[in-house]
């Protein structure tokens, strides 16, 4: 068990290498360079800049030296866009907000989604089911950017309850978190509901009833734990969604996280920043998937003890 997890963790490293290779290759495969978006620079200036940042060296050498910097010093290199700051600086500024947004959205999704699904299943074909299904439908049907816009319009513009941007006070956290969590809530609720209904038909539930166990105990001690096992399997993709979806939300709500730099860095060919962020996102997804697997093993004794 432990060896399996260790092996999985170590696999992340080659995966990250390949990710970095692909990203690097993509960036350099296409004509153009980091200085293209400015007004056209004189060739001499451009050459000097290239030499300064080592962009005149062969691509392979650039890649190796860049990777070397990360591995040895955890240094992602200088930013090409922001002359006085390194990539580490920029990411360091943005990462906390992004992580916070992601975690909050995840917590909301799980803490709302699972009970929603459970109540829907318990009140199957009655009003709890309808309400939960209605909420799920809204969550599926509304892309996070639409949800964000709608929330802004309703709660900020019309009702003036909550602000639309900034990240310092808790009330600024509410709308972005809900916008990001909308889709995950509905997915988790749907899966939980389906799983609970499935578990209801299992033989061991009948055994529990035959022992004279109270209905409440049957639900809480027998059903829920078994029903959550399949739900854990979708947490991986949900987390990946939160990672990628966060930067759209960050743009809409002007949150000072990493996301707002992403598209800019692609368009402006700020290789350093782009590579770093891609790697961090990729690592986050891979690592979170691993955490989910651990959780899965923990919850299901059949996997833990085999």
């Amino acid at each position: 068990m432990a060896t399996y997890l260790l092996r999985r963790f170590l696999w992340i490293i080659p995966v990250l290498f390949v990710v970095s290779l692909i990203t690097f290759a993509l960036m350099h495969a296409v004509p153009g360079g980091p200085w293209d978006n400015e007004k056209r620079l004189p060739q001499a200036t451009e050459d000097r800049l290239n030499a300064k940042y080592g962009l005149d060296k062969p691509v392979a050498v650039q890649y190796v030296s860049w990777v070397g910097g990360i591995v040895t010093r955890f240094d992602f290199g200088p930013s090409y866009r922001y002359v006085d700051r390194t990539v580490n600086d920029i990411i360091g500024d943005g990462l906390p907000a992004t992580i916070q947004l992601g975690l909050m959205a995840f917590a909301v999704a799980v803490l709302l989604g699972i009970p929603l699904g459970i109540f829907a299943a318990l009140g199957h074909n009655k009003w709890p089911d309808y309400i939960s299904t209605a909420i799920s439908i809204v969550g599926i049907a509304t892309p996070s950017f639409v949800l964000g816009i709608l929330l802004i319009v309703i709660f900020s513009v019309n009702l003036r309850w909550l602000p639309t941007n900034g990240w310092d006070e808790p009330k600024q956290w509410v709308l972005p978190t809900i916008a990001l969590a909308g889709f995950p809530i509905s997915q988790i609720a749907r899966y939980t509901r389906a799983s609970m209904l499935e578990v209801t038909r299992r033989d061991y539930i009948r055994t529990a009833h035959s022992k004279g166990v109270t209905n409440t105990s049957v639900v809480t001690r027998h059903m829920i734990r078994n029903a959550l096992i399949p739900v854990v399997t979708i947490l991986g993709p949900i987390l990946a969604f939160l990672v990628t979806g966060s930067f759209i939300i960050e743009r809409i709500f002007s949150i000072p996280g990493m996301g707002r730099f992403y598209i800019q860095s692609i368009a402006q060919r700020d290789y350093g920043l782009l590579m770093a962020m891609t790697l961090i996102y990729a690592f986050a997804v891979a690592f979170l998937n691993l955490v989910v697997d651990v959780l899965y093993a923990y919850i299901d004794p059949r996997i833990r003890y085999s």
Partner: protein
Amino acid sequence: MATNTAAATSASVRPRAAMGPWREALGRLLRNRLAVIGLILVILAFVTAILGPILAPFPYEAQDLKGVLANGGRPVPPGVGGHLLGTDVLGRDLFSRLLDGAQISMTVAIVVQVVVLLIGVPIGALAGWFGGRWDTYLMRLTDVIYAFPDLLFIILLSVAFRQTFFGQALNGLFLVFFAIGLTSWVTVARLVRGQILSLRETEFVEAARAIGVPDRRIILRHLIPNGLGPIIVAVTLGIPGAILSEATLAYIGVGVQPPRASWGSLVAEGQKYIRGDSHLVIFPAVAIALALISFTFLGDGLRDALDPKLKGKQ
């Protein structure tokens, strides 16, 4: 005499003949109300996509500047001047643009899944059938693709190739297909691999091999038809993701380029006018919502209908 009567009455209490599994599944599907709603909406979506250019009262890029000026330089509201859903600030009819967006979204839905099948099925089949090293290499490959946050990869590809010929084709639509398809095939590949792995060991396959049926024929004629159910479900449920990705790309300006009217870019354009002319955001948002809901319901319905565990039950 006893046996004659026995035979006669035996017939009268025989069960009705069981239908084929596909017919049964279709029956289950059609009894599921949500699935039927989804199916109707899906058909509607495709019809509007195909007939779009004919149904549109105006060309999607045509600008009714007179109408806008008459409205004080603001977008024309719905119902005015022959514009069923109003116009945007440049006077382009929203309904016509929505139809163009429908065409884009439905094309994305189909083409991306075709790409997914073209890449995913062979890879999954190879991995599942030959096993061993092939399986390991291919699964490692899927691990890498899976680890790459898909939206990021799509954006990366889109922006990287935006200026190339490839990227300019069809206003960037071609690039979108390619990018989304490239990141989405993993699920199908894994599914196909799993199906083949489990079916490979069944007895009818052993029998086929024993009489010398070539591998390729076994895969094509036996394994794939039997494993088809979950694949159909996965493809259908993958469509909302593709539509969503395309809309998101268009929203941030990276996907299909103007003047084509992807629903996502309509939302992006419309959000500036949301205070007074909310129709510019609401109608595209509703269109997106309907598209997502319809395929999701249909996919859920297919999954329930094709679930082998439900065979023979209510």
